């Protein structure tokens, strides 16, 4: 802990802990995790960015089919390469923590699933989500996919425009009690 402690001033830590759902101890713990991702660079410069490939090596993200999306939405990089600075990383862990409110999580979940980033979950996005979920276990057949899409739209698409806006997504997802259980990464 000592080495990590020296990286931040007291004020910085205070600020981080105020802006996230973590205590100071936990912020330091997150930093340790961040250091593990890319030892050499981060030790030299704590503000440096860790590339997406390296972040995705983290055990929690490694097996996650949406790991690239997660990196992208939390990245503030100007090059849009999905690389994360420590602050981005802290943001990410904060959103995935247990204490984060449901609304925040839903918002980021929407971003994660919105592959083409048009702020709507359309058939294309959902197909992508499903194909990533099933992974190598074999995607659904075409007719199955169509049926699935139809059912999803039936359930969630309140205004029948064949795409889910954020409001619709939030509405259905906040009623699904499994969401909070699934959308979290523990420290």
């Amino acid at each position, binding site marked *: 802990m000592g080495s990590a402690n020296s990286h931040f001033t007291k004020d910085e830590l205070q600020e981080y802990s105020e802006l996230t759902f973590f205590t100071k101890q936990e912020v330091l713990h997150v930093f340790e995790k961040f250091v593990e991702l890319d030892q050499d660079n981060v030790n030299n410069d704590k503000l440096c960015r860790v590339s997406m490939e390296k972040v995705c090596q983290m055990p929690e993200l490694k097996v996650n089919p949406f790991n690239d999306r997660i990196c992208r939405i939390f990245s503030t990089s100007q090059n849009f390469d999905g690389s994360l600075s420590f602050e981005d990383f802290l*943001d990410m862990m904060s959103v995935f923590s247990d204490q984060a409110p449901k609304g925040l999580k839903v918002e980021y979940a929407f971003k994660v699933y919105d592959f083409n980033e048009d702020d709507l979950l359309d058939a294309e996005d959902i197909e992508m989500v499903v194909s990533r979920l099933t992974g190598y276990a074999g995607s659904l057949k075409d007719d199955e996919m169509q049926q699935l899409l139809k059912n999803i739209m039936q359930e969630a698409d309140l205004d029948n425009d064949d795409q889910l806006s954020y409001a619709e997504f939030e509405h259905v*997802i906040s009623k699904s009690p499994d969401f909070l*259980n699934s959308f979290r990464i*523990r420290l």
Partner: protein
Amino acid sequence: MNRYVKPNILHIMSDSDNILHSLDETLKQEELMFGLDHVNDDTEQISEVPRNSSYVGEPSQPYNEQSTLVGNRMKTVKETSYGLEDILMEMPSRTLGRRRGRFIEDVVASGRQDYNTGTFSRSTYSRRFGSNRRHRKITEVGGGDEELADEIFKEIIEDNKEVDNEEIRAIAVNMEIKRKIRRQAFTNRETKKKNKIGCWWMFRHNMSLKFRHFKEDTRKMFASAKLWDYHLKQVEGNFGSGVHSYFTFLRGLFLLSIPSFILSFSFISIPQLLDPPARNDPNVKFTGEELITGANWFTETIMYYGYYTNGTIQTIPGSMYKMPLAYLLATAGYFLLCLLWLVKSTATSFRRNYIEAKEDESDFISKVFCAWDFGITSEDASKLQHTMISTELKEILAEKRRHKESRSSSKKCKVFLYRLVTWMLYLAITGGCMALVYFVNKELLNKIKDSLEGIVVLQQISLALIISAINLVMPIFINLMTHWEDYKYPRHEMYIAVFRNFLLKLGMLAVICAFWTDDDLKSTQTNQSGSCWETDLGQEIYRLVIIDFLFTIIFATFCAEFIRKLLTKCIPKLKLAEFSIVNNVMDLIYGQTLCWIGIYFSPLLSLIIILKYFIMFYIKKVSVMQNCRMSTQRWRAAQSQTLFNAFLLLSFLLCAAFLCVVVFLETPSYDCGPYRGLNRSYDAIIIEFQRLASDESSYWFAFIMNVISSVWFLYSIVVILSTAVVLVRSRSIGYHKFAKALREQISLEGQDKALLLQWLRDVSTNHGQSSGGQHVVPLLKRHRDSIHSTSTSAPPSRHNSMSHEFQRESDILTYVDPQHLDASHLKISDGSPGKVRKREHKDPLLHKALVNQAKRPATLYMEHNAGDVFGSARQSPEVQNRSSSFSNSQRNNSPSTSSSNHDNRAALAMSLANQHPTEPSSPVYYDEGTF
């Protein structure tokens, strides 16, 4: 709920202004474009997109879809005439703004010309804070952060004066912006401080700040300092949230039993330890077998009811500690504690998982969007999860298909018969088990009576052995039986199986309880000296707890999991055991039930239970990690958790009922325990009351107790409670109706949106071919269709009469409802004289139609329009006022702009409708700012 209902009819109106305005823009730009670089359009898009797109070709990505995605994206960009998509986004404000990061269209647009100013805020924060931000134009690149932070800050300030960390944290923006907001909040506070320097204010402010920090820190501390968190994470990482929920359940029970142990130990056992009564039989030595039987030496310790005195304890001089009273009150306190905890947890999970989720069964959504357990860390688990999700999706799809073709009647009959048989079988088995327990109990008692001296350990524990064996074997059988019954949903199958197991276990416990509290037995026992049925029952429960624990460890964990693992190495076909969450949780519930029954007869049982849970956690965890594989069935953790909580609560209530019977009705043992010599245990309290009441000094206490225990007091409480229930119930009904109405409104709005979009497409596609004439037809046709399709409330005869009104087809063609033509179709001149910008409508036919319309008295048409969704909000100011007052309650849209907008609309509509036939359509001044 509230957030997505914000859009309403009035909104659409204002939106359609925007839409048509933007459409106009688009058309203008296209006009420019078509002449200049029509050919270049597509190539430009193609060349622009890859350079700037945020998700173009990741070489490291295993997913090939990436490249096709970009293709698709570009296709859509090409397909929709650009700008149309923007308009789509700005349609009824369900999509409140867009995010930063989505900038492809922008880049494309800015590649052609400086279209950037036309886009609206992309940040999600606007979703959080309402729709009025939509109309603010924020430059996307460059100094966007600062402005964004500014906006959000202002937004929060408007909502509530103080910007605290809680609020900032929950905004979905990156750290940099959050920091800026925080800084602003800080400076804001500072300036406030400067403005009103008052000692008191400063002090109060500082204190509140400190207090808030303190509160936050403690909350975070509690949240982070969770018992066994590391182990839980490990389990979740490898086995997902299902198994994880078992362990959290175990942890919850463990945590519950600690305060209850402290309570009973400190108020019952410690006072007794201070003044230990002499043992009846001092020769009995501790041999070790007591640990299993709980008898012999243990009989006369603080372990059991029989040992406690009925007198007062005066070890500490000057203090009087009445044991009977303390015993009863501490037990009652323990039960109250458990009740509070249980009711709270059950109610919370019930509300979250059933009531809120009830409205519509969101099966597919949660199976797709909540399917992936983000907490999983191991490779194997993730593979399994992929497979699981795949098979599950396929299954439910197949099920859905099957669902449509319902079972034939013969099959239904067969299933019904089958279930009848299994239920009979099950009831017979349960009855048999209960009878067995009863007879074994009786037989044992006789034997013990016969041979008083040499009581063998095996005989003592035989009952517990039998019950534990039944508990071990029967669930397997019951699960199989339920599986054969062919339930449609696996969930139902699980519920039925759990219920049957639960009933069986409780049934056997009930037999034991009934046996020991039986009057015949007690009457025979009272003749013997030194016998104490409470202690006997306590011992029986103790044995059950211990034996059950051993069985769980030896058979369920060691044999079924560890030995099986060893066997898998020899027999390759055999797979590792699955961790059965249902059975394990049912075991926990059973153990807790035992504890609740036994706590009155053996106050230290809670200590045993604590130890048991502690050991169990580690054994189970190691066993799961080493010997088990992940379940192939997906586990709906949240719902099942509620179910288990409910079962726990039910068994608790049954136990409490049983204890109430014991305390209020049963005669306690004649010469043991704190209530010896009394008719009922409860009499101890009554005697105490009477003593207090007769005492002059505590008259007030007796008075209060009298009031509380009077009929009238109870009666008034019942009345108040039932009134409250009725009120809450009627309110919930009201909410349901309200929600339903809002839902209908949303779907209507969806239709509106679709219709508007269709119009837009028609107009924009027909704009290019200026052959005139035919493109009005689809527009008007649409319009008429919409009237017919949406005005469900209007009687059909009206439509007929309306069609009679228009005799010539040309009339229909050129008759345009003024409300559906917007200012963009009219001659518009800017209000300000400085920059006069005239826009003649480009479409001569529409223009003509409008003039034609102006010549006719439109009142007739307006009447027919009644019931039309579009019309209803626009017809007259009164209607509009009504609907706007309705909508204002749901949105925090800035009222000034929107209402003036609507007023304009109304004025426009009315002026058009009431124009004199001969008067040509006068120029309408339209305020540009309202767009």
